[in-house]
């Protein structure tokens, strides 16, 4: 572990924290354009977060300390995840602390905490949201892990930087298994990030909410942290997707600062494209009934398992 590696780690984490709200702003803008509305400003998420930090926190009278602790824990888990996912360079000292399985575990940790906090106040919507979130979670988690397993089998490692190193910096080869896994991953990401067709991030129609129903009781700085954490989650998923399926442009090691500097615009470009595609998917699809979600995520799971089987059969 060298000083440069630590530095590159710090740069990536800072970049993730800084870029995450921008990605959300960009997706919202694209969504607005695609549905022929005038778009909100690109920087709106930053302003929202700042505004929320300034406000006085209103907490329900029967909230326990768990309720107030949760936003911090969720934010902490997402930061931890952001430190593992290689976005600019693959030399991440912290990535040794947690591989892909632990990464899924971190996401689960955040999910469990936020679901518990949603049940804490004891309102009807809170527990409804918690139940649905855990429901989507237990369907999505296996599919996500199967996707990551496929990539691990190809590269013989469960550590994300090693996977990216293998996939990005070797002779170019087509992996049909990755094609399957890519489709599965897209579906899982939509579900996990509370996107259409499983959830709608913009909804405030009570009965269709999942994520929004859970965070109804939060306000001010707690809400700001949760919004920021959600943005980070989207950013993390995007970066995992890019790292697994379009790893080109990520710098190898941390010695070559020119490569890392070059990786920044490449990352921004890829994220912009990915965000646009996300907005496109959301625009062209309709939200499903909650009990269609098992079918949707079951298909993702199936695709991920098929990806593994195809990998084992074809060896690629």
């Amino acid at each position, binding site marked *: 572990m060298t000083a440069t590696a630590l530095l590159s780690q710090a740069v990536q984490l800072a970049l993730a924290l800084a870029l995450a709200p921008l990605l959300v702003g960009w997706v919202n803008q694209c969504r607005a354009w695609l549905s022929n509305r005038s778009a909100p400003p690109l920087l709106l998420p930053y302003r929202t977060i700042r505004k929320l930090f300034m406000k006085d926190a209103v907490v329900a009278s029967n909230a326990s300390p768990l309720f*107030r602790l949760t936003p911090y824990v969720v934010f902490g888990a997402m930061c931890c995840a952001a430190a593992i996912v290689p976005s600019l360079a693959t030399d991440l000292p*912290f990535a040794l602390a947690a591989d892909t399985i632990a990464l899924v575990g971190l996401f689960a940790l955040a*999910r469990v905490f936020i679901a518990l906090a949603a049940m804490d106040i004891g309102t009807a919507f809170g527990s409804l949201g918690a*139940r649905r979130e855990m429901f989507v979670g*237990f369907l999505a988690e296996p599919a996500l892990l199967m996707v990551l397993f496929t990539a691990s089998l190809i590269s013989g490692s469960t550590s994300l930087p090693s996977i990216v190193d293998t996939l990005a910096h070797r002779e170019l080869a087509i992996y049909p298994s990755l094609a399957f896994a890519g489709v599965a991953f897209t579906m899982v990401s939509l579900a996990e990030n509370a996107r259409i067709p499983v959830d709608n991030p913009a909804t405030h129609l009570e009965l269709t909410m999942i994520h929004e129903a859970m965070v109804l009781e939060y306000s001010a700085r707690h809400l700001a942290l949760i919004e920021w954490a959600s943005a980070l989650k989207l950013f993390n998923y995007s970066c995992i997707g890019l790292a697994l399926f379009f790893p080109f442009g990520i710098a190898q090691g941390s010695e070559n600062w020119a490569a890392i500097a070059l990786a920044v615009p490449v990352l921004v470009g890829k994220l912009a494209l990915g965000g646009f595609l996300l907005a496109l998917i959301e625009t062209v699809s309709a939200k499903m009934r909650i009990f269609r979600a098992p079918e949707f995520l079951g298909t993702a799971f199936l695709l991920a398992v098929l990806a593994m089987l195809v990998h084992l059969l074809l060896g690629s």
Partner: protein
Amino acid sequence: MQPDAISLVLAAVVAWLAIGALGIAGLRKLRFVSRVLFPAGAGVGIALAVVAFLAIGAPANAVVLPFGLPDLPFHLRIDALSAFFLVLLGAMSAAISLFSAGYFRSSEGTPPGLICFQYHVFLAAMALVLVADDAYAFMVAWEAMALASYFLVTTEHRIPEIRRAGFLYLLIAHVGAIGILLCFGVLQGGSGDYTFAGMRAAALSPAWASVGFFLALFGFGAKAGILPLHVWLPEAHPAAPSPVSALMSGVMLKTAIYGLLRVAFDLLQLQLWWWGVVALAFGLVTALFGVIFAAAQTDMKRLLAYSSIENIGIIVSGIGLAILFKAYDKPTLAAIALTAALYHALNHAFFKSLLFLATGAVLHATHERSLGKLGGLIHRMPWVAWLALVGTLAIAGLPPLNGFVSEWLLLQAFLFTPTLPQSFVNMLVPIAAAALVLAAALAAYVMVKFYGVIFLGRPREANLAYAKDAGKHERLALSLLAAGCVLLGIFPGVVIHALDPVNVLLVGSPVGEAAGNWLMLAPFGEDRSSYSPLIVLVVIVAVVLVTMQVVHRYYHGRVRRADPWDCGYPLQTPRMQDTAEGFGQPVRQVFEPFFRIERELPTPFDATPRYRVDASDPWWHWIYVPVARAAELAARFVGLIQQGRISVYLTYSFVTLLALLFLVR
């Protein structure tokens, strides 16, 4: 002279028996029993754990006691495997006895002194099971364990359901015991030598070895709760007092795992790959079934019982994987799978005991087991609630706690199976891994339900407002277990290193130095996979603290309290929160084929509409009810020879005697 480990273990057993006898002496002296005897038992437990921990790395040592029948002395022996499970037993018994010191009150049922006696006999019997070195001693200890636990389950024996649950437990325990007895009969291979040393020496053909293995899987499976022999668990656990549930779930189920390991890896000298596949399949089906049913439960202890079934399934699938690797001569991989199974056994002991004890505290405070009548206890019982939160997160398999470590190891073992020479197994394994992950993800769902419904939200009943937090003994016991969950979670390298002698004994290879140091877990080297829970924990805590500081420094820390918002809906009552049924409903709907569901829906014209849905265990109807019918039918035939006249009975005896004399003439 330094006393050897086995004598110290025996001393602990004798001490427990003595404490039990003192309990009989002070039959109704609650204070004496709870303030003196149970803490003393806890002390013995700690001593046993320490002795056994030191014995894990030491060479095996044995002793022969001249007890029992002539020419059938008790052989006792302690090796790494026994020592590991003795550590588990000692640690758990220490915490649970401490909790019991504050738990048992005078009640209608068994007097406290008798409970104390049964309890300590139970502990002593479990210790003897773990050190027995011949089939005779093993079966004696095994039966003593079953009987003692039966009496403990039926502590409240005035309630008919509890007697029924106890009977079911005893029945299945004995069906299992027959399997184990037959297994030992097969293993001695016609030599007539029932010591374990003799069984190791017996060269069995693969066919007989398979028979022995499956008898063991059946017999020990009945105790451990492998499908379809699991039905006693969800009946017996809610019936028993909470410390007993904790002991049964945390330790007794593990003695069955011990037995399975002893037979599969130690007594049998060869392993066939398809045993591994069968064990893996049974384990995964058990795990999935257990967790799906746990999601549908409305009684907190039944929920935990089903969750125990799930965890046993995970352990058994780890054992299956280890057998598979061992059979294909990949000892290092086998060591990792076995480590995962052992580690999970240890973890399960800690978090399940913690949660069972927490439900005990809740039960004492509220007299309520039904999830539909609890809620909001985090305000009234903060100690229990926060310590139970640790157990909840651990059992949900979340980093950086201990449940995650064993799942991580098991998944790593799964991931590296494609090196196996058989393509069929190769392709089954990813699907098995998928099932395992599904079970783990569902466990998180179940535990959110468990914790959220009991401790969070608003109290669903008015009398919950008078609930009192647990006393100091209980708090201390719960804290010890929670600390165990955390420590096992953040120092996996140390634990795995300590487990290595067991691996060497059973699969002939350690996980090795490559497993990493105290900080980092990396069973295949750091470039393949690594996990360091301590760093994860430190980073999360650091981020939390820094964020709090920054937010409060640069902005402010003002908080206003107000009524809940809830989209502005007025008139919210606590009954509008999700009930346990409501929370489990999605799982019930998705996995409907697994359940046997009976619904009673109200019609629109009902004046007093009633809605009833009953999701019951289909195995009752698939296996047990037909078996019971067949038994009744057979009994009716046998009943034909019952005449009621003594001379007829004497004739039966006489004819039998004549026939026997003719046959063995």
